[in-house]
């Protein structure tokens, strides 16, 4: 009951937030983006033990796929991206919204499929090889796309502007991100307590044992990554429409930007927990927004330092720290109590 009230209150707050803080609508939308990518990173990194450094691939690919679908429904993509013409080719309101929705969903589906294809190869890699292999995929994709003139090459793509006024546009994108985040949260809350969730945790804790027990490790790994990719692809697609103009290396396949942010968020909040990535994302986003401009060019150095410090000293994150300090909050109490009586019994 208390939980139900909490969730309802949360939902009300989420809905009201862009109206309560009208000056921060874009910030809040970005926060949702961070939350979604952190949660999806944790799906493989925290729950499955596969630390990808290349999940940004799905973000960038989602952007491009959404844009190409939206443009392709109405115009010739190659012509449109021929820099001068995107100014002339217009979209009607219906074309824009249909294109956006179809594009965003299509981006998710395309990314899920590409996750299966890439994962089929990369999931043979374990541990650090997987991390480096996925990083390689992301970097290679960025480099290749920036040489591909049909999608605008290094210039990127300029999408049509949101047809309504600026403020409704901001609210529109806020809710697109927020819906993604809420759906993802509910989905994961359910997923983590199915047999699938348990099997995925088994892969994290001891993959060799899981294999020896006949768990379909590859199938589960592919499914998990495809699900994660679906959501990353969708928020990538939303970002494409929100940003209007994006280019391959700095915006879409931004390996050391968002690509590493999501890892830091998850580590800050706590790997392998439902709330950890969310808390981490909020924490990180707030810290970043508050301090970024005061660092006078040193912000990237500070980010690197933050990664190092988090990894070296605070790897279990906030949730891990809480788990250590307040195990009873997480329902570990039963075992705790039994084990103490057990040891007392053993001693006497």
């Amino acid at each position: 009951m208390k939980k139900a009230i909490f969730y309802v209150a949360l939902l009300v707050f989420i809905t009201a937030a862009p109206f309560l803080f009208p000056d921060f609508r874009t910030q809040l939308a970005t926060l949702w983006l961070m939350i979604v990518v952190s949660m999806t990173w944790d799906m493989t990194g925290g729950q499955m033990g596969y630390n990808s450094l290349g999940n940004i691939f799905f973000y960038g690919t989602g952007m491009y796929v959404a844009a190409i679908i939206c443009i392709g429904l109405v115009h010739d993509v190659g012509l449109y991206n021929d820099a001068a013409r995107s100014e002339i080719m217009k979209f009607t309101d219906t074309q824009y919204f249909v294109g956006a929705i179809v594009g965003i969903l299509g981006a998710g589906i395309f990314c899920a499929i590409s996750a299966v294809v890439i994962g089929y190869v990369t999931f043979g890699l374990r541990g650090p090889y997987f991390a480096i292999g996925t990083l390689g995929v992301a970097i290679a994709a960025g480099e290749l796309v920036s040489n591909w003139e049909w999608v605008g090459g290094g210039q990127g793509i300029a999408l049509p502007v949101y047809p309504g006024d600026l403020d409704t546009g901001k609210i529109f994108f806020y809710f697109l991100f927020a819906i993604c985040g809420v759906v993802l949260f509910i989905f994961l809350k359910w997923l983590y307590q199915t047999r699938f969730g348990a099997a995925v945790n088994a892969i994290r804790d001891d993959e060799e044992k899981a294999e020896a027990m006949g768990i379909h490790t590859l199938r589960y790994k592919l499914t998990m990554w495809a699900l994660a990719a679906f959501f990353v692809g969708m928020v990538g697609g939303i970002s494409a429409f929100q940003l209007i103009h994006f280019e391959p290396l700095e915006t879409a396949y931004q390996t050391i930007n968002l690509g590493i942010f999501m890892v830091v968020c998850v580590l800050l909040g706590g790997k392998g927990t439902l709330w950890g990535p969310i808390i981490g994302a909020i924490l990180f986003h707030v810290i970043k927004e508050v301090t970024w401009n005061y660092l006078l060019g040193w912000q990237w150095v500070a980010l690197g330092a933050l990664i190092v410090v988090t990894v070296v000293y605070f790897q279990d994150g906030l949730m891990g720290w809480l788990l250590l300090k307040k195990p009873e909050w997480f329902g570990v109490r039963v075992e705790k109590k039994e084990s103490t009586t057990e040891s007392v019994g053993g001693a006497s």
Partner: protein
Amino acid sequence: MSSIIDVQGVSKSYGGVLANTDISMQVQKGGITGLIGPNGSGKTTLFNSIVGYHPIDEGSIRFEGKEISKLPVQSIARLGLLRTFQQTRIYGAMNGVENMLISLPHRKMRFMDSFGQNSKADYERADMLLDFVGLYEKRFLKSGSLSFGQQKLLEFAMALMNEPTVLLLDEPTAGINPTLINGLIDRLKRANTEFGITLFIIEHNMRVIMNMADKIYCLAHGKMLASGTPQEIQGDQRVVDAYLGAH
């Protein structure tokens, strides 16, 4: 009885050292087969060849008539040929019940089934098997905090949970308190008779294997030295020599 695992002429060498030379043996369906031999005789190598941990140089290994010598570990496990580890491997961060539920036979599930919740029957079966190995009282403890012997029992229970056709056990009594060994022998026998699981056991402890197996193979220096019933093996001078020679 028909043979369920059929090993024919298997050889395996590690960088010039012949670990197994031309080994042939059968595991009978529904029986308990033992594999003995002094240290370094190639028991574990043969075992690993069967479960798919490394490729073999020559020969064939068949499981229920299907060639498995080229399959990877997980495909072999999914056929119902399960193994336990000499150094036990359980999920230390989870409790006993969770460990059992993870061991549900995923190979028998349809893909969509894996998105379901564990049924009441699953929980009951987990409890029953934990009771069977004598860990019912400790089922909510973090398994990492169990003693080595208890972890071994838990791994055994997990293997039973998986409903294997054949269970390969790598030295099940190694590191177990001698007072518990009789209980373990009893449970292994009951797993064989009550659950109908074919057992294939590597064992160092002669007393244990002689009490259980109905057929024993003895390896020495990577070659098949002798095979037969426990009585025949006990009476075989070559086996005695091999063991004495190794000491």
